[in-house]
C-alpha cells in the first residue's frame, strides 16, 4: 500500500539566505536514500525545514541475493560445508555457469524491509548531512552539529511515527506554531499539517508567503527588490507588510544613502511617488498578521528617524574635509598587509589609468577614488564605498566625468550589474581590479574552492565585462605577468562568453586557442565562428582540420619549410595547393564553400604518408600552411563535430 511521508525539522531561526540551499541539499540526500516515491515537496520557514513525499511503499520489495559457492567439481565435503553455512541442505543449492565453469550457488531470499525502519535508520544522518556554510554545537563539545539547535522533529509515514532520536530530540507528531501567536505543541497528521500550522500563524509555503506580501503591497509604489523580498520571505512565518513614513526633510540627503539605510540596515522596501522619485515612505514586513494599534509602524518610524539623523550627521561632518585633503590619510588605511596602504594602491592605480589610456580626468578620479574610505559615512555604510566618494566629489565641485568615475568604479559588482557609464569610470574600475588581481596573485593570495576573501573572482569577471562591453581596445597579456593569474582570468573569460553570452563551449575554446589577449578581437571572432557554424561546410571542414592537426602531431611535424611546387602531384594535391594560393589572405567566410570539397578530395585520393620522404614532407608542409592560414580566427580542431 502506498503511503505519504512527512519530515519537519524544527530548529531555532535559520539564517534566511541559507534556507533554499539547505532544502536542495535535503532533497539530494533524500533521493540518495533510494526509497521509491512519487512527488516530493520541500518547504521551509526560518524555524522548520519540511520534506513531504507521496507514494512510498510501506515495505520495500523482496529481493534475491546470489552467493557463489564451490565449483561443481568440488569434493562433497566442501559442498556440504557451504550448504551448512547458509543453513540449507546441499540439494537445495542450484548451479550457475561462469566463464570459469559451473559453481554451486545459494540464493538467499531477502525480505523487503519496512520503509519505516529504513527511514528511522537513515533520517538522523540525512538531517545532520544537510549542508550549511557554518554549523554550531549546542549540546556540548563533540555533540551534534547543525546550523542552529534542533528543537523538534515531526517524522510520519502514513499515520505512523518514524521512531528515532537525534541530539536528544525524539521524532514524533508534534509540531510548533508561531513563537507568540501559536501554540508550542501542535499535534499534526500528514493530511492536516499545513492547515494546523496555518491555524497557529505559520504559513509553511514560501510561495504563499511571497504571494501574501505581494498581494498586500498592491497599490503601493514599492521599488521592486526581489532579493529583499526573498530575505523577508525566509525571515518570517506569517509576513504582513505595513507602510510607514518619514519626514520630508530627509529627502535632502542623497537617495543612495536613504535607500541603503532602509534596505540594508532595516530591511525596508523604499517607495516611489508617481514621478518615480523617492517618496517619504517605506514598507516593513512584520512577522505578525496585523498592527492594529500602530505600535510596529511607530516603532519602525522611530528607528528609521534615528538612522537618518545619524546619516545626516555623518554627511555634514564629512563635508568639513574635502576628498582631496583626505588622500594623505590613506597612508594609514591598510589595503592588505603584504600589499601596503591605500595610498600606495592609489598611486599605482593613477599610473595604471594613464597607461591604459585614461585622460587627466580619469587620473584625477583614480586619485580621489579611495578617499571616501576615511569618511564617517562609508565607515558606517561600507556598502556605499565609491558611491559616497562620487557624491562628495560632485558637491565639492569636481567635474562630471571625475565624480561619475569615482561613483562607478566598484562596478560591476555582479555579473548582472552594469559596467561604469563613462570611459573614465571604466579605466578607474579596470585599474582598481587589475591592481588587486596582480597584487594578490603576486603575494600568493589565490582563491581556492569557495574561499575567495578578496573577491578576486568578481574582480576578474569585472575586468572581462568592462573590456568587452566597454569595447576597450587593449591587450591584456601585458598585465598578466603571472601564469596562475593568466589561467585564472582565462577561466573567467570562458565563463563570461559561455554562460553569460551564450556562445557554445567548443566555439569559445576554439577562439580562445587562437588568442585571448584582446577581448574585443576575441568577441568579434566568436561572432564570426557562430555565424560560420550555420554553413553546411563548417563542421566537415572543422573535422578535416582536426584530422590535419592529428596527422601533423603524429608525424611530429615541426617544419616551417616552403612548399616545393615541383613535388606536387597533379590532381587533388595540385588543386588543393592552388586553392590555398588563391584564398590566402581572404576571410574564411568567403572561401569555405570552395575550400571544403578540395580538402575532402585531397584526403580521399592522396596518401599523405607517401613512401618518398621528400613528398611526405612536402605534403605535411602544405597541410600545415593551410591550418595556419585558417587558424587565425579560431583553432577549428577544437570544434566538437556531430559527424
Amino acid at each position, binding site marked *: 500500500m502506498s503511503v505519504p511521508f512527512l519530515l519537519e525539522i524544527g530548529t531555532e*531561526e535559520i*539564517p534566511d539566505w541559507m534556507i533554499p540551499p539547505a532544502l536542495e541539499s535535503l532533497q539530494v540526500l533524500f533521493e540518495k536514500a533510494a526509497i521509491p516515491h512519487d512527488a516530493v515537496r520541500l518547504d521551509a520557514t526560518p524555524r522548520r525545514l519540511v520534506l513531504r513525499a507521496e507514494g512510498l511503499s510501506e515495505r520495500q520489495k523482496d529481493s534475491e541475493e546470489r552467493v557463489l559457492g564451490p565449483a561443481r567439481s568440488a569434493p562433497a565435503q566442501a559442498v556440504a560445508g557451504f550448504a551448512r553455512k547458509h543453513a540449507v541442505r546441499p540439494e537445495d543449492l542450484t548451479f550457475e555457469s561462469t566463464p570459469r565453469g559451473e559453481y554451486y550457488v545459494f540464493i538467499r531470499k531477502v525480505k523487503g524491509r519496512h520503509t519505516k525502519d529504513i527511514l528511522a535508520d537513515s533520517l538522523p544522518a540525512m538531517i545532520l548531512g544537510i549542508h550549511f556554510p557554518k554549523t*554550531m*554545537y549546542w549540546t556540548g*563539545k563533540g555533540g551534534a552539529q547543525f546550523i542552529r539547535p534542533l528543537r523538534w522533529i515531526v517524522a510520519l509515514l502514513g499515520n505512523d511515527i518514524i521512531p528515532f532520536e537525534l541530539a536528544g530530540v525524539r521524532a514524533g507528531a508534534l509540531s510548533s506554531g508561531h*513563537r507568540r501567536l501559536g501554540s508550542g505543541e501542535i499535534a499534526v497528521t500528514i493530511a492536516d499539517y499545513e492547515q494546523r500550522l496555518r491555524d497557529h500563524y505559520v504559513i509553511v509555503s514560501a510561495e504563499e508567503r511571497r504571494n501574501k506580501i505581494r498581494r498586500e503591497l498592491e497599490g503601493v509604489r514599492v521599488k521592486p527588490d526581489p532579493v529583499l523580498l526573498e530575505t523577508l520571505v525566509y525571515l518570517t512565518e506569517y509576513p504582513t507588510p505595513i507602510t510607514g513614513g518619514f519626514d520630508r526633510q530627509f529627502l535632502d540627503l542623497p537617495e543612495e544613502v536613504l535607500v541603503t539605510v532602509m534596505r540594508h540596515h532595516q530591511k525596508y522596501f523604499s517607495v516611489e511617488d508617481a514621478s518615480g522619485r523617492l517618496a517619504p515612505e517605506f514598507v516593513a514586513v512584520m*512577522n505578525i498578521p496585523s498592527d*492594529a494599534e500602530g505600535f510596529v509602524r511607530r*516603532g519602525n518610524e522611530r528607528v528609521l528617524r534615528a538612522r537618518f539623523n*545619524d546619516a545626516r550627521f555623518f554627511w555634514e561632518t564629512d563635508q568639513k574635509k574635502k576628498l582631496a585633503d583626505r588622500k594623505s590619510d590613506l597612508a594609514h588605511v591598510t589595503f592588505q598587509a603584504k600589499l601596503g596602504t591605500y595610498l600606495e594602491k592609489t598611486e599605482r592605480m593613477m599610473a595604471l589609468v594613464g597607461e591604459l589610456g585614461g585622460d587627466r580626468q580619469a587620473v584625477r578620479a583614480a586619485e580621489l577614488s579611495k578617499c571616501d574610505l576615511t569618511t564617517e559615512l562609508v565607515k558606517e555604510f561600507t556598502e556605499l564605498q565609491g558611491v559616497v566618494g562620487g557624491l562628495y566629489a560632485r558637491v565639492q565641485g569636481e567635474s562630471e566625468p571625475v565624480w561619475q568615475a569615482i561613483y562607478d568604479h566598484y562596478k560591476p559588482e555582479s555579473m548582472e550589474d552594469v559596467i561604469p557609464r563613462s570611459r573614465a569610470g571604466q579605466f578607474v574600475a579596470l585599474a582598481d581590479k587589475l591592481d588587486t588581481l596582480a597584487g594578490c596573485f603576486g603575494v600568493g593570495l589565490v582563491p581556492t574552492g569557495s574561499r575567495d576573501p578578496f573577491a578576486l573572482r568578481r574582480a576578474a569577471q569585472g575586468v572581462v565585462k568592462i573590456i568587452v562591453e566597454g569595447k576597450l581596445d587593449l591587450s591584456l597579456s601585458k598585465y598578466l605577468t603571472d601564469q596562475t593569474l593568466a589561467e585564472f582570468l582565462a577561466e573567467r573569460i570562458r565563463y563570461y562568453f559561455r554562460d553569460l553570452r551564450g556562445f557554445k563551449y567548443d566555439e569559445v575554446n576554439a577562439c580562445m586557442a587562437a588568442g585571448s589577449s584582446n577581448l574585443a578581437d576575441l568577441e568579434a571572432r566568436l561572432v564570426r565562428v557562430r555565424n560560420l557554424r550555420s554553413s553546411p561546410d563548417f563542421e566537415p571542414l572543422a573535422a578535416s582540420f582536426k584530422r590535419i592537426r592529428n596527422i601533423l602531431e603524429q608525424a611530429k611535424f615541426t617544419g616551417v619549410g616552403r612548399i616545393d611546387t615541383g613535388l606536387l602531384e597533379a590532381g587533388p594535391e595540385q588543386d588543393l595547393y592552388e586553392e590555398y594560393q588563391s584564398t590566402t589572405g581572404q576571410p574564411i567566410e568567403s572561401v569555405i564553400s570552395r575550400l571544403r570539397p578540395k580538402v575532402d578530395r585531397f584526403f580521399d585520393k592522396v596518401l599523405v604518408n607517401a613512401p618518398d620522404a621528400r613528398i611526405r614532407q612536402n605534403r605535411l608542409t602544405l597541410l600545415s600552411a593551410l591550418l595556419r592560414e585558417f587558424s587565425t580566427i579560431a583553432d577549428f580542431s577544437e570544434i566538437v563535430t556531430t559527424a
Partner: protein
Amino acid sequence: MESFQEIIFKLKHYWAQRGCIIQEPYDVEVGAGTMCPETFLRVLGPKPYRVAYVQPSRRPADGRYGDNPNRLYKHWQLQVILKPAPGDTIEQYLGSLEAIGINLRQHDLKFEEDNWESPTLGAWGIGWQVMLDGLEITQFTYFQQCGGMDLELVPAELTYGLERLAAFLQVRDSVYEVEWAKGFSYGDVRYLDELQYSVYNFEMADIPTLWKLFELYETEATRLLSLYDPKSTGKKRFPLVPAYDQVLKCSNLFNTLDSRGAISVTERVGVIQRVRRLAVGVAQAWVDQQQEASVEVAV
C-alpha cells in the same frame, strides 16, 4: 511607564527566579559585559553556571559629546549567561521581554543572523541580533569558543542594550530623555560623563602616558603568566583573576588610544594580537587551575 531602573530591577528579578546569580557590575573598565570574568572565565571548563549582571560598557570611539541621541561612550548592558544553554533559552528570553511589559503579540520580533566574534578574547559564537519593531534590542549568542578553546558546555549569552530597550518602552527619541527614576532623566545622570569622556578620549588623553600605562599593565600580566606553574601543588592560590584584570586594563587603554587616533591600521592588528595573547594565556591557565580544583573537591 517603567523607569530605566525599574526595567533593570524587573530583568534582574526575572533571571534570579530562573536560577541566576545576580552579580553587580565588574569594577574594572570593560568594553562589553562579555569581558567580565563572570563571563569570560566562567564559560570555560565543565562547571555549569548561571549569572546575570548589569555592566556599564565603555566604547571610547562611540562617544559623541552627549550630542547624538543614540550613541554613547558608555552604555549599560544586561548580561545573562546560562551555562549550559537550556533547550528553552529563547522561550525564557521572550518571557523576559514580556516581564518588562512588551506584549509580543502586538510587536514584530525577528531573529536575524549575527555571529558574534571578539578577536581580542579569542572568542566567537553563533547567534542573532534580536529585532523588535526594527530596533536591535539584544545580541543572542551560543558561545562556541573562548580564549581560543572549544567550550565543553555551550553557554547562551544574552546581552540586552538597556538604553535602547528603555527608549523603546518609554517611546523616546533620545536616550537622554529616558526616565531613569521618577524626576530624573538619563541625561541628568549621564550627560556630563558622556561629554567629559568624549573630550578626554578624543582630545586630551595623553598618548605617551596611555602607551606607558598599556605597557606597564601588559608587563605585569606577562610577568604573572610566566610565573604560573601547572605542576605546582599550590597553584590554586595563583592570582589569575588579578592577571586578567591587567588584561582588561590593556584592552580599555587600547580602545582609548584607538579613539584618540593614536593607532595606525597596521599597528592595530599587532596590538590586538598582544592583548589576545594575554587573554588566551589567562584562559588556558584558568582551565588548568580549575581542573586541579575539581579533582581536589572530588577527593
